[in-house]
């Protein structure tokens, strides 16, 4: 089976999942006890405004029709209107999509930069003291709540040392990079322990493989074997690990964005929840889920580029 067929097959597979996800987004909002519009307006709406809002939101229709409206419009890119902000949800979301994606990418990059050397060291000297230290560090890092860690980093780098900005996004490109550092680092430190553990195990597994012994028997030196054979094989799961943990990446991003007042999708979600802005919440959850699916698809694709065996099955 060739590459195009595989991609097509995967996208087709995604469809039922997308339907399921949209159902959940939809139902979650429409199962709100009480009248969502009332809640959105904190009970201050007049009957006429209520009726108008209901009509605008399509809330006067039977549930299945509402669902159909929702997904048919969503497929076109229309995610509804936010009553609170009186603007199209897709516009609101669109403005904040890029910063969040950049934050996620930066976090992933930082996480890999931190995790890779540490996992190589831990694997090469497995069961020796340095390995235990690294793994203990990993355990501590995993147990640290990202919001707390963010506060500590803020206190330290932002306030005591005053090296880095602690809120917002900045204006110019260089300035933005600076603003990215602390939030991305916070998420990365939360993600790194998981990466270290998986990479270490992957490297150890690969080092036990027969072809590594064969490579040694050919007379190749340990560094070449490590880099060209072991690492390349061991790194394959990295994209998968990152993709699988994207849920946690996003979750971490939500909290961190809130903490650092970073203008992304995460802080938008928190604000929308506080304001009971249900159309935004609904649209956002759909966007998040689709983001996860796309990331997983991309990671599977990258896997194929490296390991041709996948195309066989």
């Amino acid at each position, binding site marked *: 089976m060739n590459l195009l067929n595989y991609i097509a097959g995967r996208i087709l597979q995604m469809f039922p999942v997308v339907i399921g996800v949209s159902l959940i987004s939809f139902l979650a*909002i429409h199962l709100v006890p009480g009248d969502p519009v009332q809640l959105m307006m904190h009970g201050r709406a007049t009957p006429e405004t209520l009726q108008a809002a209901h009509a605008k939101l399509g809330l006067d229709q039977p549930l299945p029709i509402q669902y159909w409206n929702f997904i048919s419009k969503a497929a076109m890119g229309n995610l509804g209107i936010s009553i609170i902000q009186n603007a199209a949800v897709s516009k609101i979301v669109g403005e904040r999509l890029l910063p969040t994606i950049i934050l996620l990418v930066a976090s992933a990059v930082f996480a890999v930069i931190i995790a890779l050397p540490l996992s190589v060291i831990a694997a090469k000297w497995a069961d020796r003291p340095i390995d235990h230290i690294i793994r203990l560090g990993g355990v501590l890092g995993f147990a640290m709540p990202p919001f707390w860690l963010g506060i500590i980093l803020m206190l330290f780098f932002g306030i005591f040392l005053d090296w880095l900005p602690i809120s917002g996004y900045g204006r110019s490109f260089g300035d933005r990079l600076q603003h990215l550092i602390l939030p991305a680092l916070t998420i990365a430190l939360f993600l790194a322990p998981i990466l270290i553990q998986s990479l270490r195990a992957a490297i150890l597994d690969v080092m036990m493989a027969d072809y590594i012994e064969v490579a040694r028997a050919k007379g190749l030196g340990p560094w070449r074997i490590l880099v060209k054979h072991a690492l390349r094989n061991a790194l394959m799961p990295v994209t998968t690990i990152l993709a699988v943990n994207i849920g946690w990446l996003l979750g971490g991003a939500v909290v961190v964005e809130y903490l650092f007042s970073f203008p992304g999708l995460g802080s938008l979600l928190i604000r929308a929840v506080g304001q009971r802005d249900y159309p935004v919440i609904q649209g956002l959850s759909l966007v998040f889920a689709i983001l996860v699916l796309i990331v997983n698809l991309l990671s599977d694709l990258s896997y194929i580029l490296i390991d041709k065996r996948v195309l066989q099955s």
Partner: protein
Amino acid sequence: MSSEEASQGNLVRHMGGELYRWPMTLKIGSAILVAIVLAGLFAPVLTPYGPFTQDLSNTLLAPSPAHPFGTDNFGRDVLTRVLYGIRINLPFGFFTTYVPLVYGIILGALASYWGGWCDSLLMRVLDVTIAFPFLILIIVIVATLGPGIQNIYLAIFLTAWTMYARLARAEMLVERNKDYILAARNLGYGPGRIVFRHAIPNVVNSSIVFSMSDFVLNILLLSGLSFLGLGVAPPTPEWGAMIAEGRDFMLEAWWISTLPGLALVGTGTALCLIGDGLAQRLGERRYALI
């Protein structure tokens, strides 16, 4: 060992016997956890203050012998609140982990054993829930139902089982083709007996190891949600909420936010160590059984 005993792979029986042979991480982690549990149980004895007792003349005091963790902006003793926080976070983590574990494993194992449309259906459901980032899902549900710890419980009970179902399903796929299962079928045992008495004890290993991480993540979840204002209601002494409350006073009174975080890290570390020890222990056991 009779095949009956072998097939049961009884985790408790094998583990309990040789305490001194437990891995180091398991011992250290358990010790810390026991200490934390005891501290939470005996909180009223350990501290003269109450968790809600305000003392407005003594707000924002730095750590001192009288207040080892200092006081917060309401004059409440932070150490006391941290200790009482154990009573909130630990049981939450426990129930939100082990209750979904039970029905998650059962559902995953059953669906996988039956195969066919049952299994496909489960796979679809799992795919969908995996796609939804967990925290987002919880936030959405909380947004729908309103804040409060009961709603968080409900949200987790609705969704957390999927990970265990996934793990149990994966293990069952391997297990159901093993000889002892086929032998049991030939002996005429009903599927219920086969699944529950023979197969399930052997498919729980990865779930048990994962449950430790899940425990930590659930506690972090509660703290995170409380931090965001979507969790417990004030003035409940929950660690995440305390961290949030301390945010406004970061410059003058760093201890309000920092020290509850240490409690979280300590608890999380203990649980992770236990998980690591369990993984080692169970890893050894699996080979021994085969």
